[in-house]
């Protein structure tokens, strides 16, 4: 038995989060420590075994059987300071061999892995009762001895060797993960990781199962099927390599391998009894986490009479209290010594399946997770995580007083690896989860669809089929759903270019604007729907809240941040108050949100497209007014919309007729028929998702030329009549629209057709929205200054007339306001309103020609 002095140095019993501070004893005095652990191990081997007698009898044999093939194992006898024969160490490669054989490793203690161990013991106990000798059985094969772990086809030695080869050789220059910063992709990836461990001192090696699979299919299968046997073998392999390379490295405990991204199961709903005891990866959202639970791993007993001490492993949550002291044979003399027993940290976490995975009309499933040691408190409620772990089912405890047992198992997952998914959402597109969603047949189908010549029209038709016509608007929204290509100009100092397309719908009430918004909101995975009336600036952006339980300040995100990479639908845009709307300025061009509140200063990504709907200011569109006057939105905001659509009641007989037919058909067709007619919403959704994540069109040479021409045209048309009708912002819009149209075709190159369509749509939308009611000419300056060029011209003329009038009055230093107005009215041949007059005065004041004070006008 180990000496009492060694107890404090045990890693695994440590309370609290042990990962950061290295334990002083280890760190500072490796030699002596080494010495002692060795000693204690050897004594441990020789001492009589206090616990379960059958185990005692068999374990040496077991050890022999296991270690006969790789001889160095025998020598490697664990630097553990507990008894070798205890059921825990018994037969598991992890506990036995984890103590790496090379000298360098000796000082590094093994930390028990509760994430692997909790159920296995049951199996062993059972074996004894069955009279089976061992859980490692030698199976004689024709080619000679081959040892496998009982119940599996895992051969420890070959498994270890394969894994070592994997670590040393695996290179995948194409695979890029976001943690790969600073890795040379052409060097063995995991060797670099080990180097990192040496430098950083965090003894965990994360291994992507996908890599393993591409390297060795069989090894991968073994890992998935027998994780609790294979992972310790991996541990062993990793440690051997590590300490071989860095013999002087000091780690807090030995390296633990943490596989992740097992492809076994993605969805919680698919878990079934076959997955029990296998390595699985599921995604979900943390909904609850328990307090830290100190779980007793090993109880320490001392005899009250002779002070003989013994340790007892916890078996399925129970301590088998020794009734007789082995030393003095006194009955009931053993007492538990709490502070010498060993505990490990444990936490229960509830994971709920993510809303996207849920079938409609059902409630989400949940699953319990057990996190151990330093995985405790790694996730908070609300986090989206991918969890890799071992799925367990445990029968509900037998109640000693009632003979019958509930025939139900409790299930949980022992966590091996967490991977947060939503923290990434704020930094980059989460491509991993989105890419995996498509099966090959689906991709085939989508590609097939994309080849159709009329795919653009088809998709536009499939969009909100219940809304009649408005084809261009649907096309616009379709392009918005696809979005442009993301362009990064950070190196030239311009930052990211916006790829999202913003659309404003403006029109008469009852033209199904809200319905369109609702549809889009339902279609996109990260859509948000708010109403301008009911939302405040805070609700849109983010706010700081004090968590009532922890008293911590928490940043709660609002609709705009939540719809990052999605679409934020804002209904009743015109009813939104001014300050709220001003928040949108930053979002709509820079695609970020800056927050400075309650000590939290940050910039959040809000790469959201905005689909807004507004009613005209008089609630009915006034055709005699300009768009600006009808919408009454600040021009700065309006110019940020790529497309502004007017949804007006056309009042056209043919249209009415078609509308009537469409509506009538709604009222008798059964649902199946409707589905036949149009493309499925699910297909549309997949099509868009696929295009968004895989297609990234670039401007082609021709298209670039076409764009330049289009832009020059747009400007030329304007300049011919003395008006500027296009701004660089409109050119950007044009590019985005063209890119989106190329995405619709699944094309990697933007071609002239795309530019043509973008131009057409742009013109179509603008023709309606920026037609100068007085001249009938397309005039974007309406959008940028809120005033048509003719109105501007008229204003200038009036100012000049006023100047002449004043100058004609001679040297009078000051003039009466009312007098001047009357004079101007008498002189002018158009009706001069007071507003127009004041504007003219202001214009002259700007020229430093005069000043206006109260009711008098002074010349300067």
């Amino acid at each position: 038995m180990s000496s009492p002095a060694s107890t404090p140095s045990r890693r695994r019993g440590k309370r609290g989060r042990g990962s950061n501070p290295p334990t002083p004893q280890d760190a500072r005095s490796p030699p002596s420590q080494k010495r002692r652990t060795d000693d204690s191990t050897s004594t441990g081997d020789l001492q009589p075994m206090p616990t379960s007698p059958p185990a005692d009898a068999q374990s040496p044999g077991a050890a022999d059987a296991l270690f006969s093939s790789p001889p160095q194992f025998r020598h490697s006898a664990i630097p553990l300071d507990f008894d070798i024969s205890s059921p825990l160490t018994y037969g598991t490669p992890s506990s036995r061999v984890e103590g790496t054989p090379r000298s360098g490793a000796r000082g590094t203690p093994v930390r028990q892995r509760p994430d692997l161990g909790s159920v296995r013991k049951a199996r062993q106990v059972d074996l004894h009762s069955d009279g089976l000798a061992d859980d490692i059985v030698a199976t004689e094969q024709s080619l000679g001895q081959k040892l496998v772990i009982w119940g599996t086809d895992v051969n420890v030695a070959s498994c270890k060797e394969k894994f070592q080869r994997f670590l040393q050789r695996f290179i995948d220059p194409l695979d890029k993960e976001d943690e790969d910063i600073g890795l040379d992709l052409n060097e063995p990836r995991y060797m670099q990781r080990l180097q990192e461990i040496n430098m950083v001192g965090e003894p965990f090696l994360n291994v992507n199962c996908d890599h393993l699979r591409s390297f060795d299919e069989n090894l991968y299968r073994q890992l998935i099927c027998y994780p609790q046997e294979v992972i310790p073998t991996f541990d062993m392999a990793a440690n051997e390599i590590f300490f071989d390379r860095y013999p002087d490295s000091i780690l807090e405990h030995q390296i633990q391998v943490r596989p992740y991204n097992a492809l076994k199961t993605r969805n919680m709903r698919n878990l079934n009894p076959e997955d029990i005891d296998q390595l699985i990866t599921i995604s979900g959202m943390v909904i609850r986490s328990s307090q830290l639970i100190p779980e007793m791993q090993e109880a320490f007993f001392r005899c009250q009479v002779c002070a003989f001490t013994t340790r007892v492993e916890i078996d399925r949550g129970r301590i088998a209290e020794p009734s007789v002291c082995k030393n003095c044979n006194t009955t009931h003399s053993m007492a538990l010594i709490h502070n010498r027993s060993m505990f490990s940290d444990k936490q229960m976490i509830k994971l709920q399946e993510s809303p996207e995975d849920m079938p409609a009309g059902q409630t989400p499933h949940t699953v319990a997770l057990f996190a151990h040691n330093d995985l405790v408190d790694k996730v908070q409620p609300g986090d989206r995580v991918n969890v890799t772990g071992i799925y367990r089912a445990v029968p509900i405890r037998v109640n000693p007083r009632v003979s019958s047992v509930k025939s139900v198992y409790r299930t949980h997952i022992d966590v091996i690896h967490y991977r947060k998914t939503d923290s990434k959402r704020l930094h980059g597109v989460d491509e991993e989860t989105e890419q995996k969603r498509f099966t090959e047949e689906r991709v085939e189908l989508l590609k097939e669809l994309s080849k159709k010549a009329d795919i653009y029209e088809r998709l536009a038709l499939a969009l909100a089929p219940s809304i009649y016509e408005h084809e261009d608007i649907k096309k616009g929204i379709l392009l918005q759903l696809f979005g442009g290509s993301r362009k990064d100009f950070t190196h030239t100092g311009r930052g990211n270019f916006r790829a999202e397309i913003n659309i404003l719908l403006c029109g008469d009430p009852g033209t199904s604007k809200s319905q369109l918004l609702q549809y889009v909101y339902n279609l996109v995975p990260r859509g948000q729907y708010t109403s301008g009336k009911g939302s405040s600036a805070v609700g849109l952006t983010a706010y700081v809240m004090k968590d009532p339980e922890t008293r911590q300040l928490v940043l709660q995100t609002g609709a705009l941040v939540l719809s990052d990479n999605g679409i934020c639908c804002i209904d009743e845009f015109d009813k939104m108050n001014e300050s709220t709307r001003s928040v949108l300025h930053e979002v709509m061009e820079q695609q970020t949100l800056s927050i400075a509140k309650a000590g939290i200063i940050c910039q959040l990504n809000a790469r959201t497209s905005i689909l807004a709907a507004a009613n005209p200011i008089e609630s009915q569109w006034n055709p005699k007014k300009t768009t600006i006057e009808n919408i009454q939105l600040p021009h700065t905001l309006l110019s940020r919309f790529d497309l502004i659509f007017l949804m007006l009641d056309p009042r056209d007989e043919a249209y009415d007729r078609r509308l009537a037919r469409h509506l009538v058909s709604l009222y008798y067709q059964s649902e199946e028929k409707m589905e036949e007619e149009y493309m499925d919403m699910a297909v549309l959704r997949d099509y868009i998702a696929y295009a968004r994540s895989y297609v990234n069109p670039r401007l082609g040479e021709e298209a670039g030329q076409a764009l330049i021409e289009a832009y020059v045209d747009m400007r030329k048309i304007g300049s011919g009549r003395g008006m500027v009708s296009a701004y660089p912002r409109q050119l950007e819009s044009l590019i985005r629209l063209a890119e989106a149209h190329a995405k619709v075709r699944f094309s990697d190159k933007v071609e002239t057709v795309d530019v043509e369509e973008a131009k057409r749509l742009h013109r179509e939308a603008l023709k309606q929205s920026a037609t100068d009611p007085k001249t009938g000419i397309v005039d974007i300056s309406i959008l940028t200054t809120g005033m048509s060029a003719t109105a501007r011209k008229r204003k200038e003329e009036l100012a000049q007339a006023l100047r002449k009038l004043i100058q004609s009055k001679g040297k009078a230093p000051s003039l009466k306001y009312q007098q001047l107005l009357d004079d101007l009215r008498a002189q002018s041949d158009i009706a001069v309103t007071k507003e127009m007059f004041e504007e003219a005065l202001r214009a002259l004041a700007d020229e430093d020609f005069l000043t206006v004070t109260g009711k008098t006008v002074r010349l300067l």
Partner: protein
Amino acid sequence: AQNAPNSDWEKKVTEYFKEKLKENNATNWVPSLNDVPVHYLKPNSLVKFRCMVQDMFDPEFYMGVYETVDPNTNARVLHFGKYRDVAECGPQQEIDLNSPQTVTSERQTFYCVPVPGESAWVKEISFLTEPVLCFLNPWPHAYISASQARVSPSTSYTPSRHKRSYEEDEDMDLHPSKQKEQHMACKSCFPGSGGDIHGCVEPKRLETEASAGHHVISPNCSPPLDLNFPLPGEKGPACLVKIYESWESFKVNDVLEVFGVLSVDPVLSIVNSEERDSSSLDPMECMDTMEEQRVHSPPASLVPRIHVILAQKLQHINPLLPACLNEEESKTCEFVSNFMSELSPVRAELLGFLTHALLGDSLAAEYLILHLISTVYGRRDVLPLGKFTVNLSGCPRSSAFTEHLYRLIQQLVPASYHLRMSIESMNHSRFIPHKDYTANRLVSGLLQLASNTSLVIDETQLEQGQLDTAGVHNVTALGNLITWQKVDYDFNYHRMEFPCNINVLITSEGRSLLPSDCQVHLQPQIIPPNMEEYMSSLLTAVLPSVLNKFRIYLSLLRLLDYSISDEVTKAVEEDFVEMRKNNPESVTADDLHKMLLVARFLSLSAGQMTLSRERWLRAKQLEALRKARLQQQQCVNGNEL
């Protein structure tokens, strides 16, 4: 002594019961948990339950096959765990948890409640064995006589046959051992409540107990267990329904009728309480909070378990109609065609009845009929089709008119709820179901209703006042329900949309603050001095048989198909274009929507499955009348101002 596991028997069980239940009204012989209190039912017997899925728990892994060992003799016996909560084993036996023979299977648990807002008449008529009987004497049915009628067959009929068949075994000599097991069960559950145990041994005594008529539900239960009914003041058993097959097809808020094995083993509750005492060391204990345990394994006396053998979704819960109308059974067709032949007199009578109820306003009565047979028959992307929310404005405020109107409606529809809007009720009641993560369950709210429930919202009692956040959410939820026919359940971190199909009728003085599809202004022809007397006399004046016909009428017409011929489509088109020509302002697409809706339900209400030109004109006429009335009302109000 038992068979080796093969999956065949599982199929056979379901088939056997399916066949048996098809036989002449066999379903009526199975005691229903809806009518008979749990403690009158024999444990482990076949029962049925008409219920709504309120929540879905996580799937359960259970021992499909397990092995017991006798430690003395080392004799091993295989058992089946399906359709059971408790793995049984003899006093000298132990369950071998590590046996290689063990088969783990999966089942799903639904938390089910009786259909919320189920009308009293549905419950009462469901008692009767033969649906035909209802026509003769549906009304006052003393509870005791009914329960007696139901209980006695259950005790004499079920044990020998059903017991055996779900006990996977074909050989006859099992019976004695079965009885022994029953005795065993009695012994083991002795600490629990006594009543039900005697039942399985002495059926006779049960009957006498039943006739004594005390049906106090479980006197020794802990009182504060919230059974999570959507509506306040609901009674009835909630039930944990364990489904073994194709549970994916069921959704939250579906109305089901399940046939299965009742399990009220008191051990279920005992296991819990004891676990709680000695929970200190069990690592599994810390997995669930106390609340979660209470919710997920409540005492069986309060929330019994049903292990489902057969489950089916119900299209409607009207007991006067055959359960499934789609089936091509001659009986069903006969029933429908018989009823259709006498449809128009029924409609006329119903119209008269409702006209009286609406104080002589026949137009409002016409619209009320249309409203009552409306149902969401489809969704075009987000747009629900076929919802017809009526806002009955101009209701007299003083007399309890709306109250009485609701009572009448209650007599006609199978499920309904009267929501009296007031500042307080809006601010303090729970409308939207939300997920309680501590207890891991969906806490129900008022708006968690089954399809085709009538929700009557009374706005006349609403006073001025301040709505707080909860109140605003509640009103928004009501608005969403009316416009989109969906409720966004609150899952704390996100919201989830559940489509629904609820008929909303709003009674108000002026125009309602909630959106509606059509507003009908009530024009009372008579103002009865005593509203209560007037309304109750109205109800007593209707013969029960006629009342039943009304009920069939309303439920049946909802389920009919409808179409519009090309010819009529053309006519409607022409009409619309014509109307727009004359006055483009007044007729919009929305109006056309409304007219088509009215036309649809008008045709259906007359039993016609296609739109005819006459109906279309009639629909237009009705709409014109309604609009004229509204305009008139606005003028009146304008003058007053």
